[in-house]
């Protein structure tokens, strides 16, 4: 599983990678997930439905990330713009 983060001037950056089935790597992923949320990021998982349609799901804890997911994308939380 890869954690990607969108960043200005970079595009996406790989910030963590690991196998959730391996206990140590699982813990590291959980830790990084929390850290990103504490930094004010939102997390989303790109999904493909059984009909082949691409969707996305927002997740707010690592428990919500399906084990089969290969990447989680973090991006800055939304803020109302140009009021």
């Amino acid at each position, binding site marked *: 599983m890869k954690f990607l983060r969108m960043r200005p*001037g*970079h595009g996406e950056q790989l910030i963590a990678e690991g196998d959730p089935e391996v206990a140590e790597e699982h813990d590291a992923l959980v830790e990084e997930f929390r850290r990103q949320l504490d930094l004010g990021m939102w997390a989303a998982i790109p999904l493909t439905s059984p009909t082949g349609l691409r969707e*996305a*799901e*927002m997740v707010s804890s690592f428990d919500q990330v399906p084990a089969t997911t290969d990447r989680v*994308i973090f991006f800055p*939380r*939304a803020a109302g*713009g*140009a009021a």
Partner: protein
Amino acid sequence: MIFALCATAIVIIALLSEIAWPYIERRLDARRVRREARRRGVAAPYDPGRERRAEQRARELLKSCVNEDEWAMYRDLGLIRVWGGQAGLPADSARDLRGVPYAYLIYPHKPIVAYLPMTGELLNEYCVEFPDETRPYGSARLPDSDDVLAKWMALKGDERRLIAEANLHLPGRQVDPKQVQRDIWRLGRWERERLERRAGTAEGDASPPPARPNNPGPLGL
């Protein structure tokens, strides 16, 4: 004679400024980012090459996440349409749509525009940004395609939450309604052409093989 020359000069200056303005605007933006970076003590100045590479990576990520049609829409038209999915949102906050399908147009670094695809009527603008306050190069702005992907994921994943975070405005506040109407028209034409191409391809696939090597196909091609 002098009056005519003056008038001609004014027209030439007006036309030149129209052409030069986008360039000047880009330069001013770059200058502003550099100044901001210096103020914050960031060593890296604005680098157009770096921004292009970032945008290229962002495009690849966007392509890998959205549907094929949506990617083609963004590549060809510079926008993505996402259908509204949740009952009671978004325009119900202002008026009752009674189940009429609505959709959003996502532009890079512009408000999301909600509209009724059946009539083309514009409903609202949702001004929303994804500022990265770590500002690795002095700017909090994501690459264009990352901004589009962030909006797409947030709308698909939690439409209600994104709309709640956005500033709601009537159409025309930031995005020119005429431009949006043109985009809706372009989108409709683009979809029709795409459907026709698909239908043509399907017919071509379904047609029997030519009896003779030089036998023309159903379209005479």
